[in-house]
């Protein structure tokens, strides 16, 4: 009775319209699970949540850059598999080209990053210069990379998995190791690129209106290629993390992550139509999805139901995005 209806409406509008809305949701998820879920608030689980979300975090960051330019990159999960196989073939203990050499790990990491950048560059060139739809280009490169990864693995080791990776490489996957540090750095650089640089403003401009951007002197094609190259590079970083963590090179790594990658960006508030989004928002989206999955898993909800719930949440996030946009426009 003490709150005037208009104040309540304003508060709702402030919370829902806030760019930290998803962060508040993370807090709500935590508060909902913590009292009823043994182990949820343990230090071990904190580490687990943080380590588990790293590959998704770096992938969602790359996807955010692409989504802001009004594109989409469906090839990221296939880049993970291809990068994993290429890197493992460079350094792998049984059949690696540089097995036993001290250069094996750095060369493998370089090969993995190079693979991602190359696939991203080809995607970007097809989209920017050949004017092909991003969905079609990245869908076909996903198929191509997936097939190539399996073919390469089978040619080299007559199996799909490559084992006996060097300990120096495996150390990249340790919780709190160099891999985690590099991911955090990459996410920070992407955030600063978008918020503090002219190039960042170009990304938004291209996403808003490529034609007007071109007229204004923005190198539209270069921005688009750059976004896909960064997305490919970030996918390679996820590949390094997953390969090191599982101590195996495999074309199957990351295959089920695509829904989560796009979902995390959308939940964070990045628009599928371009011109709107932030790396920080995607960080919140990743944290939300990971916390939700972790909490549901710990309360013994079946994985099929978890997938259904995640799909529902992403749909609600997309609807909320529309609603929030209206609220913000209205105010």
């Amino acid at each position: 009775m003490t709150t005037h209806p208009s104040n309540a409406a304003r508060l709702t509008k402030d919370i829902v319209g806030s760019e930290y809305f998803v962060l508040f949701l993370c807090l709500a998820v935590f508060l909902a699970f913590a009292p009823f879920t043994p182990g949820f608030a343990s230090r071990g689980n904190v580490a687990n949540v943080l380590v588990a979300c790293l590959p998704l975090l770096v992938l969602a960051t790359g996807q955010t850059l692409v989504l802001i330019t009004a594109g989409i990159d469906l090839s990221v999960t296939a880049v993970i598999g291809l990068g994993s196989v290429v890197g493992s073939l460079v350094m792998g203990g049984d059949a690696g080209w540089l097995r036993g050499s001290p250069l094996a790990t750095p060369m493998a990491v370089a090969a993995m990053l190079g693979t991602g950048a190359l696939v991203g560059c080809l995607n970007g060139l097809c989209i920017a210069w050949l004017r092909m739809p991003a969905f079609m280009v990245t869908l076909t490169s996903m198929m191509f990379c997936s097939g190539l990864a399996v073919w390469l693995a089978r040619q080299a080791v007559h199996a799909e998995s490559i084992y006996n990776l060097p300990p120096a490489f495996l150390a990249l996957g340790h919780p709190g190791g160099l891999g985690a540090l590099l991911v955090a750095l990459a996410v920070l650089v992407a955030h600063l690129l978008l918020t503090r640089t002219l190039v960042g403003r170009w990304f938004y401009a291209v996403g808003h209106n490529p034609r007007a951007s071109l007229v204004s002197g923005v190198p539209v094609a270069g921005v688009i290629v750059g976004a896909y190259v960064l997305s490919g590079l970030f996918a390679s970083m996820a590949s390094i993390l997953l390969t090191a963590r599982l101590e195996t090179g495999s074309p199957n790594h990351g295959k089920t992550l695509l829904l989560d990658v796009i979902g995390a960006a959308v939940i964070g508030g990045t628009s599928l139509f371009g011109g709107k989004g932030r790396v920080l928002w995607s960080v919140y989206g990743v944290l939300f999805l990971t916390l939700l999955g972790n909490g549901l898993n710990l309360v013994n909800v079946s994985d099929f139901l978890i997938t259904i719930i995640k799909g529902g949440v992403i749909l609600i996030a997309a609807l909320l995005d529309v609603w929030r946009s209206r609220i913000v426009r209205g105010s």
Partner: protein
Amino acid sequence: MSQLTRLRSCLPAAVLGLLLLLLGCDRPTGNGTSGANPPGPATSPGQVTTIGVAFESLMTEFWVAAFDKLKADCAARGITMLEAVADGDTARQFDQVKNFLNRGVDGVIIVPKDGKTVIPMIKACNAAGVPVVLYNRPADPTDARHTAVAPDNVAITKETVTYLVSLARKTGRKQKAMILMGDLSDVNAIGRRDGFEAAIQEAGDAVEVVSRVPTDWNQEKALAGLQSSLQAHPDIGLIFASSDFMFPSIKSVLSSLGRWKKHNEPGHVIVGGFDGDATAYQLLADGYVDATGVQDVYWEAEQALQVILDAKAGKAVPARIDDKGFAITQSNLKELEPRMWGAVVAKKK
């Protein structure tokens, strides 16, 4: 205004910090398994109240039967079974196992995707002091402590294929044969292929293998591989599937060629498999399938759970428990049917 802006810019850091602080507030729990700050419900030493069961997939009847048996056995013993299915994603399974450990389970049963990627999961369980059992798929050689309950794939397959070869020999002419292999990063698939090859080697001139199709345990790939092989060799007379879940694909392709015949009909293609599922039982009973290698899913599940109970009770547990299994054929179907898990499932349906 500038203060407000500063406050706004600090908000995400503050909320994130609060969240992590809350997350980091360990509650004093413990079952004595994970060192100085163990999570999970408090249990007395040796008592098993919660176990985590992480399956790589529930795609086939075999895995569903195993999952249901573990669930039923846990319920019967008053044990809470936490469940997780990774849909073939090893990274996801690793996270699920770690979730179990954070939850403070008393034991973990894993059906891994392959023998190598499971090793980090076993090591994580070892580090937490939680007993771990690999169900049906053993790990590659490792010093990480665990127990594997798995079938003797080579012996069971060899017995099954030897029976198929004996049927081929009875036809009086050299039969062309093919094998639908599994995912060769899976030791079960390798064992079944090796058992097939061993039986073929002893078969002499009775059969000639003209096609070895990798299926990656994927029914669509099995179907496509079968179609191609039967197009290249229309006179293939013996087909061995490394898992019974491929029988519908075999039926589909042979039916379209008019060659899906019962064992006592002319033009019958000799068909065998591995697992002993309900479909296999029905096809055996109907006379279309000649033999299948049966692994005892219920016995394996009982053993897996018993290992956790024994380990928690401080008893010594073996590193490997072999399911000897058996080949069920048209000749011994009536006699061995009660021991075939697929027959039990089929009759429940």
